């Protein structure tokens, strides 16, 4: 029961960050602020969803895989947002 509540709260919070990140991606005025919104969805959203699913992983290796997925998403999104931000800076004056 307590674990169910952890799952519900964490996954809902993760979904909220995805929603907020998507709204930011659509509404923010320029590349850098949009990237800022996107990384919130990737980092906190995926992190909270992974955290919420941990009690349901069933096995230690399943839980470790979830954590690996989260860490790999962190690595990829941090790198990609750096690259996009650099490309945006190099291709034009910052607004």
């Amino acid at each position, binding site marked *: 029961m307590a674990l169910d509540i952890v799952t519900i709260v964490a996954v809902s919070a993760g979904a909220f960050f995805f929603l907020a990140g998507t709204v930011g991606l659509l509404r923010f005025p320029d590349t850098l602020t949009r990237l800022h919104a996107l990384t919130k969805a990737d980092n906190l959203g995926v992190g909270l969803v992974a955290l919420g699913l941990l009690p349901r992983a069933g096995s230690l290796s399943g839980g470790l895989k979830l954590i690996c997925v989260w860490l*790999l998403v962190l*690595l*990829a999104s941090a*790198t990609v947002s*750096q*690259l996009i931000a*650099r490309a945006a800076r190099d291709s034009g004056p910052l607004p």
Partner: protein
Amino acid sequence: MTFALALHIALAGMMLGLAAWTIAARETFAAVVGFVVYGLFLALVWVRLDALDVALAEAAIGGGLNGLLLLGAAARLRAAEAPADAERPGASLRLLAALLSATVAAALAAAVLLLPEPAPTLAPAAAANAAATGLANPVTNVLMAFRAMDTMLEKVVLLLAVVGVWSIAPDHFWGGRPGVRHQADPQGTLAFLARVLTPFGIVVGIYLSWTGASHPGGAFQGATILAAMWLLIMMAGLADTPPMNARRLRLMLIAGPAVFLLVGLGGLAFGAAFLAYPAAYAKPLILAIEAAMVLTVAITLGLLVAGPPERSAAP
């Protein structure tokens, strides 16, 4: 309405919307991005249909590698986009094309909807004969044993695709290296990602190929991940693309079909038929073919993305 049904309807609606958006997008780049997202959603659909092997392949190939190929094509076409846009075909021609596409889609839908209930299937036969190979994954059984001929020909087609890409090289670059030499800051972000991610990617790629014997996964999915790691290293500028006249490269390119063909001929010589595995050696033979195929498919996919030779072999 159950939650699962609502999810399926939402997924189907998203697919249709994405497909329409991809077709309607004016810019090639936007259409390619739409197509990549479409591929990822299609993978989700396969997961919901309990076809995990297909989902993995779709996510890796349809979403990942095809997207990369199309992005490369879009980048090359960028200069020609404005003039090509100016000479758009007339409204009647476009209407005709739309009608033709809609007819094909309707015919496909009718073919699926008119299937008898239950639909004809060989799945029980495949499951009943699973013990013949010693592999637990029925999909791998079908790919590597029951329909091994198709899989072998598929590998030959991949080889032909590389030959096709190479054949558009200008004469004076024949034997040279594909694409441009990527220049990236060796201390930069991309080089960092290539250094950190590649070991994980190699482990995951080999694991996916290995576990395909008993779980969802397989040579093609694993090889795609290995190819992606190789491409990442090349794009980060940590390694150059190989010259197409390198003997080792060419040997690796034909390793998969060659081992497949040898095992097949062995079946003809010592067994019942072409590609008939002796029951006692079925599993080791299949694993040997898969190992060679992983190497070949990874190299092939990497070379397909790298493109035709565009400079001489000297670094």
